[in-house]
């Protein structure tokens, strides 16, 4: 809502001119000032003049020689190229020395041999509008010789206010004035709505059949209206409000909408077919050509005003072309109707016709305002366009709104706002809003129908707080119970930090994917289609209509994009929800949506020394990261060969915790690497986060032995497909003295033979191991390995340290 300060003063006496003080008042009333625009005369030395004579130019046909009275007793000869005026016209004149918008300087000069002492100006030349077909012709009573800006209400300041959806009443200058009057504790001066009418009945009757869509329909008929341009004072106000001037009839309806907050529509009464207007729901498929020339197909949720030939207006949203006011209009039906807000909301959005009017109707225009607003429009139109107003008013009023009474007790106010607010203070603040307040043991507040937002005690408390000025409230902090992170939340952060510490960068991707992308990492596809897909009913784009079931496609896209930016190494991780169309264990009512953790790495990865490149990320990198997570989170993650769609068939581990599959780690399938246009290997992991971050029993300390350790190596010939990690676990399992064991060599010959070398460290908690004991343990391990099919190739000595 754009509010001109000069216009606003017509309705309220403001105690200040200070723009920042007024801005603060608007802000603190809850009508945030989005912008302050200063309007000044964009010129110097432009005066109001009266054209005395107009004569042809002796040497040119397209221009004329005028003589103009500027109130100084002299005749000023000015050459003019416009033809939209004759002698007697009152016009703006730039005299020699004037500077017009854009720095355009006016001087005395000869035009085709005749001297011109200045220029008669058009709207565009003065920066007041777009019109340039002719010069501006002012009202006959404009003061000759006065500076032109003196009749333009300049300078002026326009506050662009953000009006919240619950305040239809502030969508007009009068309502804005009412708010400032409450703030500054002063009165509102309401516009004059008294009419001079002539006896007579309108040629139309109005029937409302859609009584659930229309609350009230008020109309007056005016006859013999002269259509033309609206006066400058009105078009200037419209201009500052951001509304284009069109004709006096249309401008008046817009002006009253801005002034009173009630939209208005003017019909050409002679263009209405028949003598009856009906307000009804449109039939599906019905069409209407609206004012903007569009032919619109209607639905049963649209309200229309129809005459004998069908729809003539899309109610509340836009008039129809057929009954539009035109150059020949003289009989006008001025309508002020109020409509059911949701209907307007749906219709304006469905037809993409959001306007000043729909913005008001959506908030809920007070039906009890309709008659005054309508009268105001007729009064103004009569003032500027002449004609007569018929006495009989059409007033169909199917849904009557009555003021509501709201009781407010002191406790309610004090519970929310504090003990500084007793009943007397509450009363005086509410009275500033011109609410009717009866005082007893509590307040009985009668709320006028223009404030539909005030229906409950809490609503009144807001008004009290607002007028008390939010700035006057203290800053206190409640003392509640102690807070904290849940264990799972702490551990989730730990998981993030483990990956971050390992050198990965967290990505955040949108969860929308195309149907095809779902199949890439889903092992359960049927005929290439992934099951359990959750679909967005109203997606932004059709290729983003599905919710992701894996984080990997998004991550891989980002790997490629970063690669394409010239980065050799890209190491990303993401944690986020994936979605499956089946009931969720956490809440059966909503789809399954577990949090996943995923990793994608390509290029050289790990520590890097000068001259020594770190190794290229591959499946072993993924496995190492899984190990990092497992060790860092204190969770035993089992690894076994696994297959999963999208993963490399022979370089992928299935991960499990307590036997339950958690996810997969390995390498991107070469075919998919190609599909994602990523060259080289890509280490990938995807797993369910919840089991990893679930609470764990507190770790109990194990005694750290102070006795010496013994290291020895065993090398085994194994089958090429052996699960060597399992071999280590099995051999370790037969001895209680193993402190640690790790594979330090995994040799594969070209002919399919494989040897695995394991280093064991033995240590007893309570004694130094003797050589017999060590030999015995070693023997047990070799036997266990043999039982697993591993044949001893050799081993190092058992050197005590």
């Amino acid at each position, binding site marked *: 809502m754009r509010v001109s300060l000069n216009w606003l003063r017509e309705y309220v006496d403001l105690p200040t001119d200070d723009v920042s003080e007024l801005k603060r008042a608007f802000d603190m009333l809850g009508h945030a000032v989005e912008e302050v625009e200063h309007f000044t005369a964009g010129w110097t030395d432009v005066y109001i003049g009266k054209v005395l004579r107009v004569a042809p130019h002796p040497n040119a046909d397209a221009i004329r020689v005028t003589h103009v009275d500027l109130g100084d007793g002299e005749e000023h000869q000015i050459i003019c190229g416009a033809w939209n005026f004759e002698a007697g016209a009152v016009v703006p004149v730039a005299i020699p020395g004037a500077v017009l918008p854009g720095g355009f300087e006016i001087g005395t000069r000869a035009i085709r041999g005749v001297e011109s002492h200045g220029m008669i100006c058009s709207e565009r030349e003065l920066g007041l509008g777009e019109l340039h077909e002719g010069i501006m012709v002012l009202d006959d009573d404009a003061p000759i010789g006065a500076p032109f800006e003196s009749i333009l209400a300049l300078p002026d300041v326009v506050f662009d206010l953000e009006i919240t959806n619950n305040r239809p009443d502030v969508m007009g200058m009068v309502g804005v004035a009412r708010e400032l009057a409450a703030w500054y504790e002063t009165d509102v001066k309401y516009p004059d709505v008294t009419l001079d009418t002539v006896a007579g009945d309108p040629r139309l009757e109005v029937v409302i059949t859609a009584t659930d869509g229309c609350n009230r329909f008020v109309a007056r008929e005016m006859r013999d209206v002269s259509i033309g341009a609206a006066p400058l004072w009105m078009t200037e106000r419209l201009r500052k409000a951001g509304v284009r001037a069109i004709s006096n009839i249309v401008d008046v309806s817009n002006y009253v909408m801005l002034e009173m907050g009630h939209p208005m529509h003017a019909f050409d009464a002679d263009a209405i077919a028949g003598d009856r207007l009906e307000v009804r729901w449109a039939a599906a498929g019905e069409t209407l050509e609206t004012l903007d020339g569009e032919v619109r197909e209607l639905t049963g949720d649209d309200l229309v005003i129809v005459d004998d030939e069908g729809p003539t207006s899309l109610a509340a949203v836009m008039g129809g072309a057929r009954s539009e006011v035109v150059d020949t209009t003289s009989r006008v039906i001025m309508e002020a109707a109020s409509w059911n807000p949701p209907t307007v909301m749906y219709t304006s959005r469905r037809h993409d016709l959001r306007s000043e009017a729909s913005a008001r109707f959506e908030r809920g225009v007070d039906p009890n305002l309709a008659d005054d607003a309508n009268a105001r429009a007729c009064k103004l139109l009569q003032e500027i366009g002449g004609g007569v107003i018929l006495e009989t008013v059409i007033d169909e009023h199917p849904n009557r709104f009555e003021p509501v009474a709201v009781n407010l007790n002191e406790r309610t106010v004090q519970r929310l706002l*504090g003990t500084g607010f007793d009943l007397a203070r509450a009363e005086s603040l509410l009275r500033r809003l011109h609410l009717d307040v009866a005082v007893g043991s509590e307040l009985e507040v009668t709320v006028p129908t223009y404030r539909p937002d005030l229906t409950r005690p809490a609503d009144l408390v*807001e008004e009290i707080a607002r007028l008390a000025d939010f700035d006057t*409230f203290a800053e206190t902090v409640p003392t509640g119970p102690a807070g904290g992170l849940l264990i799972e939340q702490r551990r989730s952060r730990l998981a993030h930090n483990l990956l971050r510490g390992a*050198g990965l960068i967290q*990505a955040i991707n949108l969860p929308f994917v195309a149907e095809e992308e779902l199949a890439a990492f889903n092992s359960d596809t049927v005929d290439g289609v992934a099951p359990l897909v959750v679909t967005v*009913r109203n997606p*932004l784009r059709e290729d983003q209509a599905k919710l992701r079931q894996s984080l990997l496609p998004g991550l891989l896209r980002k790997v490629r994009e970063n690669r394409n930016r010239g980065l050799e190494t*890209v190491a990303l991780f993401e944690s986020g929800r994936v979605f499956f169309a089946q009931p969720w264990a*956490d809440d059966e009512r909503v789809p399954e949506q577990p949090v996943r953790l995923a990793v994608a790495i390509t290029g050289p990865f790990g520590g890097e020394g000068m001259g020594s490149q770190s190794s290229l990320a591959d499946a072993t990198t993924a496995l190492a990261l899984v190990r990092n997570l497992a060790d860092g989170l204190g969770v035993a993650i089992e690894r076994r060969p696994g297959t999963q769609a999208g993963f490399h068939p022979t370089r992928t581990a299935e991960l499990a915790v307590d036997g339950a599959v958690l996810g997969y780690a390995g390498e991107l399938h070469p075919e998919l690497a190609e599909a994602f246009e990523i060259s080289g290997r890509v280490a990938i992991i995807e797993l369910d986060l919840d089991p990893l971050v679930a609470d764990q029993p507190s770790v109990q300390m194990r005694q750290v032995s102070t006795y010496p350790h013994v290291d020895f190596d065993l090398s085994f010939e194994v089958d090429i497909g052996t699960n060597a990690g399992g071999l280590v676990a099995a051999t370790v399992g037969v001895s209680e003295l193993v402190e640690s064991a790790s594979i330090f060599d995994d040799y594969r010959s070209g002919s399919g033979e494989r040897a695995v070398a394991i280093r064991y460290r033995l240590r007893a908690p309570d004694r130094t191991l003797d050589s017999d004991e060590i030999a015995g343990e070693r023997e047990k391990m070799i036997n266990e390995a043999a039982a697993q099919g591993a044949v001893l190739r050799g081993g190092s000595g058992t050197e005590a340290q």
Partner: protein
Amino acid sequence: MTSNLTNPMNLNDSLDVLRRETVAAISEASDSETLAAIEAGAVGRESPIAAARRSLGKMAPEERRDAGRLINDVAKELEALVEERREELRADERAAKITAEAIDVTVDYTRLPQGRLHIIQQVMDEVCDIFVGLGYHIAEGPEAELAWYNFDALNTPPDHPGRLESDTMYLDYGKPEDEMLLRAHTSPIQARYMETHEPPVYIVAPGRAYRNDTIDASHLPVFHQIEGLAVDESIEFSDLKGTLAEFARQFFGSTTQVRMRPHFFPFTEPSAELDVSCFNCDGGESSCRVCKGVGWLEMLGCGMVDPNVFTAVGYDPEEVTGFAFGMGVERLAMVRHGIDSIRHFVDNDVRFLNQFPG
């Protein structure tokens, strides 16, 4: 000459010569090998001193004692000098080695892996931590959510524009009467939490939210929010203001001021928007790039919990009061870090993400 040491008649003089020669040699020794040779030559197994000691046995007992003391004194003196010189040489060698192994500390010879948390994650964690410090717990909830929790439980009227498909994303899932959507804010978490917890409640609810917005410099269809809720026996408006002021000071800096302006939200009454004083110019500069001279930065929406919300979740609005607030994580990050487009957050350009340590 030194062989004379075995001759008792010349012992005194000979020792003196040996001593002087050896002392001079020790002080001139320039490395530990030379020094070791001097030591061996003077007091080692084959040295004149050793020979002299061996010859003591042949001396008369009365001469032996004096000669022995004389030999020992010289030997001790020389050994001490050798040791002293050896220490000096060691120190020299250490110093030389240290000089030789100097590195240029301005060169990154080695780089260890160092990743980053996404700036959105960092800000979310930081905001949550601030509220944890103020006594809050962190609550989470589903993103694919029942319309009831997203709208109805939060006092959103059936015809509210936010429910339109142009604003909210709906899902084809489940029974038609349980309309399913992608939550438009994280407030449904509050409703769920109140359903399952008795007051007092002090929670923040971080997470993703979804709106049917096309991506541009200031809109994403998926963004992050942190909503807060405090419900207790005597929560007042000033508690809301004070809590958010404390948050703002911790997040933007200790001199930050806050201002609340009336606003409208269906789920709070009174409702307000919170502005924070510009951390860049303290509200003083008309040319400030952060606040554009306004002095205040619009930061979040908040208010006292609407009684209808309490009723919807089974709380008695006569028994408790509360406040709620909601902030956009992207906005917090953009304002504090001067990020010019919200698109950066989902572009995941490593060069962008790496700029924010943490």
